[in-house]
């Protein structure tokens, strides 16, 4: 009895202190909230500028899956953002209307679930009063956040490496509603196109045998995965005069047991097997298991080979593997290699991948836009400026289409394909970027 009483008291005090701690924050923030809600309407006047960027600070918020199955991507993004912010602040912050501001980054975890990402975005905007929200690297979460962007016209929303086509379609339908939402990345349909062209090119070169035009897919059960299959089929229709999909296997994200699928494929005997995984382990497992069971098809991988440690973990098994998109060439592009070193310098055991760079560049794009626009308020022109930007980076040019999606093309963001040749990545497509000849797999 007594024990219970004490326990109850203990718990009550605990919760009380918790609530107390937050009540404090409530008090403070609701104090400021009054004025900020007051100002948010009259923000257009330059006087209120100082208020939102008070104390020479501009606040950036990020909604990321820092826990759960997608944490790998989420944490990569967080590291990229932190790196960029640290760098910018070291170099004296960013310039806006003559005076310089320091950047402050708020990263929040949404566990990869859309409803939480909405809560978190609301929190960032309402409580931390951020002026830019990096709205997730998962399309589903980004779509959820996209839905509230018109409620906060003063805030700029920009995604990190979301590939779903839906953004384009939705935005195209109603551009002025999503005037402050941007997706600085290409669509999965662009992936697909690249896939189609690559196959066409390789079979033309006689590197692969695509006579039966049979394709099998293993993709993970995410929007990106599923829509990628559609995109690839469409592209093959376009560039190879059609194809037959002998099997389209959808596995849960992060799954690592592909024996059954591989055996199935052996019986179906496709020309090409396309695999799309974001987590590295799925890719490694698949590659090892194919090598183990043995196959006579051509493997074309999406996304995962770029993750750090793929070659190390698969060893000889990945030799000759074709993969795309080679979003960043950390191996043969000096600048990108230098960037990789910077990441490792700040996060020694980071799992380097393209998300680091995309998020890193995301910060620079936004800060440039702020400098150009002379405001950190989306409605006062930040959104417009950001959308109109033509941003030259170490990894291609970011230019937004009218559907607020970055253009994918040889002169903008290149989707190049690479092959593993003696344990090294070599770009083999498109021709004008290739510095190695594709060779037959196995």
């Amino acid at each position, binding site marked *: 009895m007594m024990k219970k009483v004490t326990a109850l008291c203990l718990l009550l005090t605990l919760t009380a202190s918790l609530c107390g701690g937050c009540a404090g924050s409530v008090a403070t923030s609701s104090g400021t909230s009054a004025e900020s809600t007051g100002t948010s309407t009259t923000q257009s006047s330059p006087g209120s500028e100082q208020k939102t960027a008070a104390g020479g600070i501009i606040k950036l918020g990020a909604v990321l899956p820092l826990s759960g199955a997608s944490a790998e991507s989420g944490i990569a993004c967080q590291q990229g953002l932190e790196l960029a912010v640290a760098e910018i602040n070291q170099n004296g912050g960013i310039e806006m209307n003559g005076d310089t501001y320091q950047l402050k980054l708020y990263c929040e975890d949404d566990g990869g679930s859309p409803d939480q990402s909405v809560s978190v975005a609301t929190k960032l905007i309402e409580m931390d009063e951020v002026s830019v929200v990096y709205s997730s690297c998962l399309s589903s979460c980004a779509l959820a956040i996209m839905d509230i962007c018109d409620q906060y016209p003063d805030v700029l929303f920009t995604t990190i490496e979301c590939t779903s086509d839906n953004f384009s379609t939705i935005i195209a339908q109603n551009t002025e509603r999503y005037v402050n939402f941007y997706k600085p990345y290409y669509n999965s349909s662009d992936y697909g196109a690249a896939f189609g062209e690559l196959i066409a090119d390789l079979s033309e070169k006689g590197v692969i045998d695509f006579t039966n035009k049979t394709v099998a897919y293993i993709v993970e059960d995410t929007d990106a995965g599923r829509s990628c299959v559609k995109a690839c089929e469409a592209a093959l229709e376009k560039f190879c005069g059609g194809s037959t999909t002998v099997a389209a296997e959808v596995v849960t994200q992060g799954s690592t047991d592909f024996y*059954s699928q591989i055996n199935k494929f052996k019986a179906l005997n496709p020309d090409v097997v396309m695999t799309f995984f974001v987590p590295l382990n799925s890719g490694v497992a698949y590659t090892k298991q194919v090598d183990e069971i043995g196959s006579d098809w051509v493997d074309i991988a999406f996304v995962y080979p770029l993750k750090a*440690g793929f070659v190390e973990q698969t060893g000889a098994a990945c030799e000759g593997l074709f993969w795309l998109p080679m979003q960043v060439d950390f191996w043969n592009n000096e600048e990108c290699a230098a960037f990789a070193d910077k990441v490792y310098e700040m996060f020694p055991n980071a799992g380097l991948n393209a998300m680091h760079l995309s998020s890193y560049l995301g910060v620079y794009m936004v800060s440039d836009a702020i400098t150009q626009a002379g405001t950190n308020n989306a409605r006062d022109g930040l959104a417009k400026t950001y959308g109109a930007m033509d941003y030259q980076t170490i990894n291609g040019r970011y230019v937004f289409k009218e559907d607020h999606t970055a253009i994918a093309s040889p002169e903008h963001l290149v989707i190049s394909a690479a092959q593993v040749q003696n344990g090294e990545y070599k770009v083999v497509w498109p021709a004008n970027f290739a510095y190695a000849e594709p060779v037959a797999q196995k």
Partner: protein
Amino acid sequence: MNLSYWIEMIMSGVVTGTCYAMIGAGLSLIWGTLKMVNLAHGEYYMLGSYFLWTLLTVGNMPLIPAIIISIVGVVIFAAAVHFAAIRPLLRKPGWNMSPWILTLGLQILLQNLALKIWGELYRNVPYFWNTVFKPWNMFTMSGQRIIILTSTAVIILALMTVIKKTRLGRAIIATSQDGEYAMMMGINIKQIYFITYTISAGLAAVAGILLCPVYSVNPWMGATVQTKGLVVCILGGLGNIEGAIIAGILMGIVESIAVSAIGSEWRDAIAYIFLLGVLYMKPSGLFGKKKGV
């Protein structure tokens, strides 16, 4: 669809099944004696693999000692958990949901601790025995899979002999059948609770260690396996260890056939439907005793 195809299918099913079997057997054992469902069971599986990974890569130890140490480590951890958290809840006669929710909390805790300690990256353990066999050119068999199958078989046999033949085994069965009178036979059931809990944690750890080279290591690897483990130990008849083991293998095979016949996205659905079908025909599971509890 020739013979070798089916052999391959069955083989891959069996390999997956062994994992389910070990987890399921552990859960079944715990259910039998402690009359609780351990929702943190998958996390012991996860810990097992992580310990091995750490010892191999960070501590760069030789394989065998690494394996032994990691199993022992998990067992010790489980023992600590048992004393700290589980035992206080078992004091009350009769059981309710509170042990479940406790283990649920444990699950969240361990997953996020793992994330904190080992990071978000998916870790990968090299194959123990990196060769490939082609018996009669019928099907391929990697050394790792042979190791998995043989050692699982050995462990399961050992477990069964312990349960069936030894004094301890009799005590465990007695406790699970009638705790009160087991005590009157001179059995210290608290001790039995403790032993069964640690044994099943050990089983989970072994499963994790054997399979982590094939499936790689991450903080969330336990959750999915555990759900299947639960399904399996219900399918085999709750508290029936042989049942759980057979059901595990069976479930693995069913899944891999489901993949080949229908498609991966329906794999789990088929597994669940299979269970429901069995329960519909035999409400106490495949090998469950008909008891109106």
